[in-house]
C-alpha cells in the first residue's frame, strides 16, 4: 500500500553501560499491522521511544515519515504520529472531553472532531465526567482516543491490551484494523504473542535488546518448525494394536491407556493422519494441536539462548 513510514538502520541505544537496543534495522510500511513482541526489558519500549524521537539513538539512524524524529524540526511530522504509552496516569482532575481538547490543540487539530473520537472508543457517555471517576478500561480507552487525534499515519501502541477485558481488546483490534485499512502503520507491542492473537500481519521478536525474528506469522511458523501434536484415542479392542502401527514409522508416546500422541513436522501432518487412519484400527477420536503462538515465540527465544 502506501510507502515506507518508519526506517531504522542499525539503531542502537545505550543508557550508560546498559544496552537497551542493539543494532536493530527494520522498515515499516503503511497499512501494516506489526506486533512487536519481547519480554519485559527486551527493548520494545526503547524502540518505540526511538521512533517517537523521545530519545536519540547512540548509533545508527531512525527515520519516521522521512524525518529524524529527534530533531526539533520533526515537531511537524509528530502531528501525524499517535502514541499510547505503556503506563499513563492521565490528569485525574480534568474531564475526558477537556483532556482530549488539550491534546487536539497541541496537534493543531480541530477540537470539533473530538466527540467522534470519543464515541469511537466508546466513552462518549463519560466525556463530561472527571477522569478520576473512570474505570481502568475507560482510562485506557481515553488514552487510545488521544492517539487517534488527527488520523495518524503511524500509530505506536505500547502494550495496549495488557490486562484489559476481552470487550475492550476487541474495540482495540477493530480500530487497529480500520486504521491500517486506511493506510496507517500500526505497531503494537506486547510481552505475549498470544495476546495479539491473529490481529497482526507481521511479527517482530525482540530479545535481550536485539531483533531476533521478523516476518509474517506464517513465515515464523515455518521457520520455527514446531512439531504438530496429533492425539489419537483408539477403541477398546485396539489398545494393544496401535503401538505396532506406530512402530513402523512414527514416533509416538502413550498418554493414557487408550490415547497416543504423535509429534510430527507441520508438512508431515497430512501424511501422518492418513497413515494412522488408513489401517483397520478403530479410532475413537483424533485431536490435532497446532503449535500455539506462544510455542513459536518460545522457540525463537530459546533458539537465541542456545546460540
Amino acid at each position, binding site marked *: 500500500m502506501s510507502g515506507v513510514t518508519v526506517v531504522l538502520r542499525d539503531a542502537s541505544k545505550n543508557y550508560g553501560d546498559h544496552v537497551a537496543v542493539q543494532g536493530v534495522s527494520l522498515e515499516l510500511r503503511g497499512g501494516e499491522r506489526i506486533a512487536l513482541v519481547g519480554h519485559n526489558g527486551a527493548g520494545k519500549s526503547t524502540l518505540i*521511544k526511538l521512533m517517537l524521537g523521545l530519545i536519540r539513538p547512540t548509533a545508527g539512524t531512525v527515520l519516521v515519515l522521512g524525518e529524524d524524529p529527534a530533531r526539533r524540526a520533526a515537531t511537524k511530522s509528530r502531528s501525524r504520529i499517535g502514541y499510547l504509552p505503556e503506563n499513563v496516569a492521565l490528569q485525574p482532575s480534568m474531564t475526558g472531553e477537556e483532556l482530549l481538547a488539550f491534546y487536539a490543540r497541541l496537534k493543531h487539530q480541530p477540537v470539533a472532531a473530538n466527540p467522534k473520537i470519543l464515541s469511537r472508543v466508546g466513552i462518549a457517555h463519560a466525556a463530561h465526567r472527571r477522569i478520576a471517576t473512570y474505570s481502568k478500561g475507560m482510562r485506557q480507552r481515553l488514552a487510545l482516543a488521544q492517539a487517534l487525534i488527527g488520523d495518524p499515519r503511524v500509530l505506536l501502541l505500547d502494550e495496549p491490551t495488557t490486562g484489559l477485558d476481552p470487550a475492550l481488546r476487541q474495540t482495540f483490534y477493530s480500530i487497529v484494523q480500520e486504521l491500517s485499512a486506511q493506510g496507517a502503520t500500526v505497531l503494537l507491542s506486547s510481552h505475549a504473542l498470544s495476546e495479539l492473537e491473529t490481529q497482526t500481519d507481521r511479527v517482530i521478536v525482540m530479545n535481550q535488546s536485539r531483533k531476533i525474528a521478523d516476518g509474517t506469522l506464517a513465515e515464523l511458523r515455518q521457520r520455527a518448525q514446531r512439531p504438530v501434536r496429533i492425539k489419537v484415542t483408539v477403541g477398546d479392542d485396539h489398545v494393544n494394536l496401535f503401538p505396532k502401527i506406530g512402530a513402523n514409522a512414527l514416533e509416538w508416546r502413550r498418554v493414557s491407556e487408550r490415547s497416543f500422541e504423535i509429534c510430527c513436522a507441520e508438512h508431515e501432518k497430512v501424511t501422518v493422519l492418513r497413515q494412522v487412519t488408513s489401517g483397520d484400527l478403530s479410532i475413537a477420536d483424533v485431536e490435532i494441536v497446532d503449535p500455539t503462538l506462544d510455542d513459536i515465540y518460545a522457540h525463537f527465544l530459546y533458539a537465541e539462548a542456545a546460540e
Partner: protein
Amino acid sequence: MRAVAIIALKEIRDGLRNRWVVATTLLMTALALTLTLLGAAPTGAVGTSGLSATVVGLSSLTIFLVPLIALIISYDAIAGELERGTMALLLSYPVSRGAVVAGKFLGATAILSIATVAGYGAGGGALAIVGEAADPEAWAAFSTMVGTSIALGMVFIALGYVLSAAVRDPRTAGGIAIGLWLLFALIYDMALLGLLVADQGRVMTAGLLNVLLMANPTDVYRLLNFTGFSELSQFAGMAGLTKQVYFGTPVLAAMLAAWIVIPLGGAILLFNRREL
C-alpha cells in the same frame, strides 16, 4: 509559542481545579489582612497603621511564604509528570521541551500572581478604606512590594524546575525543595549574621557582604524593598545596611531577573539532556 500558551492555560486550569489558587489566595489574603489591621502592634498601638508598616510586614511574610508556595507548585512539575507517564506522551506531540517548561512556568507564575495580587491587594484595599491617607511614596513602595513578591515567586518556581528536571524521583525533589527553602529563607541569613558577629569586621568587608547578599534571592528582594524607600528602611531596621549598600535599584532588579532567567534556562538545559 502556540504550544506554550496551550500548556500555560492547562496549568492554570489545573491550578484552579486542584484548589491551589483558592487555597493560596485565601492564605495570603488572611495573612495580609491580619498584618494590615494589626500591623501597628510592633510600634506599640493596635489598630490600622501606616501603609509603610504594612509593606514591611508583608515583605517579611513574602520571604517565608512565597518561596514555599512557589517550590510546592513547581518541584513536581517535570519529575512527577515523567513518573506518571504523561511527560513522554506530551513530548510525543509536536512540542519542544523548552516550550513545555516555558508553558508550565507561565502557568505557575499566573497562579502565584493571582494569589499575590488578590491577597496583598485585599490588604492594601482594607487600608485604603479604613486607614489614614498615605503618601504616594508609600503606595509606590506597596506596588513595588507586590511586583517583587511575584518576581521572587518566579525565582523559586524556576529553582523548583531545576530540581524537578535534575532529580529522578519527585519525592527526592520535594525533599530538596524543603531544604532549599530553609536555606534561602532562614539559614543563609542566620549564617551570614553569625559570620558578621564572629568576624568583627576583619575579613567581612561591606563589599563582600554585598556580594554575599546577592547570592540569596530573598536578600535581593529585601534590599529592593527596604532600601529603595527611606521610610521603609527605618521601619525594617535596615537603615544601617542601607548606607552600606552599593547597588542601586536597577542593579538589584537586574539581579532578581537573573535569578529567574538563569535557573529557568538551566532547567530547560537539564530537561533537554535528560533521558526518558
